[in-house]
């Protein structure tokens, strides 16, 4: 019996383009036959999109911290001078 995570792995391989052309064709046929599998594919795709958007938000936070370090009182003087000259 296929474990749940094996099914997720197959969906993952399909969405990531890691399947061979033949494997992808077989999988697509299964999607037509099994609506519940198609539903999982749809939600997995959506979840990965949310993971990406969330990672971007996290990265933006990291960048704000780095900027505060570089442009703050103890920051990088040559960079600060250049920016001050612009504004």
């Amino acid at each position, binding site marked *: 019996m296929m474990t749940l995570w094996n099914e997720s792995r197959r969906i*993952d391989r399909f969405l990531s383009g890691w399947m061979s052309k033949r494997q992808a064709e077989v999988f697509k046929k299964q999607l037509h036959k099994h609506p519940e599998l198609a539903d999982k594919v749809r939600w997995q795709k959506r979840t*990965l999109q949310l*993971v990406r958007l969330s990672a971007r938000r996290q990265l933006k936070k990291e960048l704000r911290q780095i900027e505060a370090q570089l442009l703050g009182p103890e920051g990088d003087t040559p960079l600060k001078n250049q920016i001050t000259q612009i504004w």
Partner: protein
Amino acid sequence: MITITNDSKTKRELLFKELYRSSFPSVARWVKRMGGDREQAQDIFQDSLIVFYEKTVQGLLENCDNPPAYVLGIAKKLWLKKYHKIKNDIPLTDWEKNISIPPDFYHQNKKQRRLLRFVEAAGKKCLEILQSFYYHQIPLSEIARQFGFSNTRSATVQKYKCLEKIRNEVKSKNLSYDDIME
């Protein structure tokens, strides 16, 4: 308890600091020329670094010999996208025109933002594992080391369990939001 080391984060921080020093002044000058203020320059520059980083981890910039020029090119494209400027108003070189920006970069609807907040609150550790693999493209062997799994296989299994957990939660939450909207 799972602990995470900061190796990848440290490497990222070094890359970003280097790019701040080499590229931020030119992006800031350009934004000022376009009539933007300092806050807009900082915002566009940070977003440019995110796009640059994504392309780097995806292996799309292996032949990029001038990262500051590339970051400036991204900043110009993002400026066009974010402030809906007309392309003809901003002269772009041929290679700048070819720089691609992820289509979902500035397109988040209200429902997505709510789901995002929910996902971030629901499974922090799982989310970190998924982000490490799918976004930062860290190999599973390294994820196993960073998150304290005994081997790559354990990390692989955990990654799929996390994917299922979050997928099911996203699905149930999204359906309930649909109900509210109806």
